[in-house]
């Protein structure tokens, strides 16, 4: 459907990629760990190697959780826009096909949050 306005009503999106100073936005959520209330948002250089997310970004952003140190990345399952997805950790975001404002979720089998409550 299109908006009903009194005259032409068209504006460029407020958040198109060129406005992010060379970065692209990526959202990352950790399944079954709702202690982090919502998926986090990041602005990354498109050339950033995916592994950096595992090595630095996630430990930093999710580090408060007692289970963060128990993550076994070889077991982790990834989802992009809800569909099963596999990163090549040695390639860049772009090479992994990640686009501006993509959303990733990861699931860490065996880890079920505080007292198993998915917190």
């Amino acid at each position, binding site marked *: 459907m299109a*908006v009903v*306005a*009194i005259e032409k*009503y068209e504006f460029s999106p407020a958040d198109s990629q060129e406005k992010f100073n060379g970065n692209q936005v990526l959202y990352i959520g950790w399944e079954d760990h709702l202690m982090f209330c919502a998926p986090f948002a990041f602005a990354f250089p498109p050339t950033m190697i995916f592994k950096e997310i595992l090595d630095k970004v996630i430990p930093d952003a999710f580090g408060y959780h007692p289970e963060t140190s128990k993550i076994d990345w070889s077991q982790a399952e990834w989802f992009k826009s809800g569909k099963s997805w596999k990163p090549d950790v040695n390639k860049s975001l772009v090479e992994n096909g990640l686009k501006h404002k993509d959303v990733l979720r990861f699931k860490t089998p065996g880890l079920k949050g505080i007292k198993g409550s998915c917190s």
Partner: protein
Amino acid sequence: MQIDLRTVSIKPLRYTFDHIAKRIGADKPASRYLEGTMDIQAVTNFHYRPLWDPKHTIFDTSRTAIKMKDWYALKDPRQFYYGTYTMARARMQEAADSNFDFVEDRGLADKFPAAAAKLALEVLLPLRHLEWGGNMNNMYICAYGYGTAITQPCNYQAMDHLGMAQYITRLGLVLGKDDSLQIAKSAWLDGAMWQELRHYIEDTFVMKDWFELFVANNLVLDGLLYPLVYQHIDKVLDDLGGPAVSLMTQFQSEWFVESVKWVDACIKVSVAESDENKAQLSAWAKAWRDRAIKTLLPLAKHALGTDAESIMESVVGEFNSRAAKLGLVL
């Protein structure tokens, strides 16, 4: 346990909100007028453009040609916020109410000479529609103007015009017959005496620049019409039939004296802001004044007869000197 909190003397951490302190200094409490007015309109980070006006943001300085470094310079000398406004009007309303009661209880309307009553009804009743026009225009400024300092009193001004339209209506019900209001409405729509005035006000209804509207309605039209009607024509009616009508229009007379203070303050400050403002405001005031004089003349002639021209001249003279004091060049 009853705690006697009064006995505690504690030093406040701050006297007022930061945006007020920025204007008046942080070392003293601020008035309720200032706290309830200054900077309370959003100025940035608007989310969406209006579907009804995509060329502007929600509040947009470009809706007028007038430019101000600080729109909150247009303060209201009456310091009206809602509480002081309604209390001021409630006092006037009480006086008006007892005037109407007085007129009705003493049967003054019935004693009013027929010729004078006829003139009063002819001259005053169609003005209830003009008041309604003043209401619409001030709502327009309130909606699309910039900064609460000016938009807030325009809401009050609009409601005042509605109130006065209702007082005139009430006068019609007291002084007239069942069909008086209808006759007056027909005159407003078709009577020769009123068409220029109606044309004037209808043209202001489609005006886009809200500050020009302020000039055309609040400064010029009110500035000429109220003295003409509520001083000069009122005097004629008083001479013809005694004070009954004056009692029922006292609200308008008092209101005009008060509202002039506010209108003048707004014009004066915006004229003083820059030469561009001064030139623009002067041009608007001159053009609308010239037109308003013409539109009011038939009304003046009808009510004042041979004195009309000289009285109009004095009304315009007073208006011109008022305008000059505000820095307008007409």
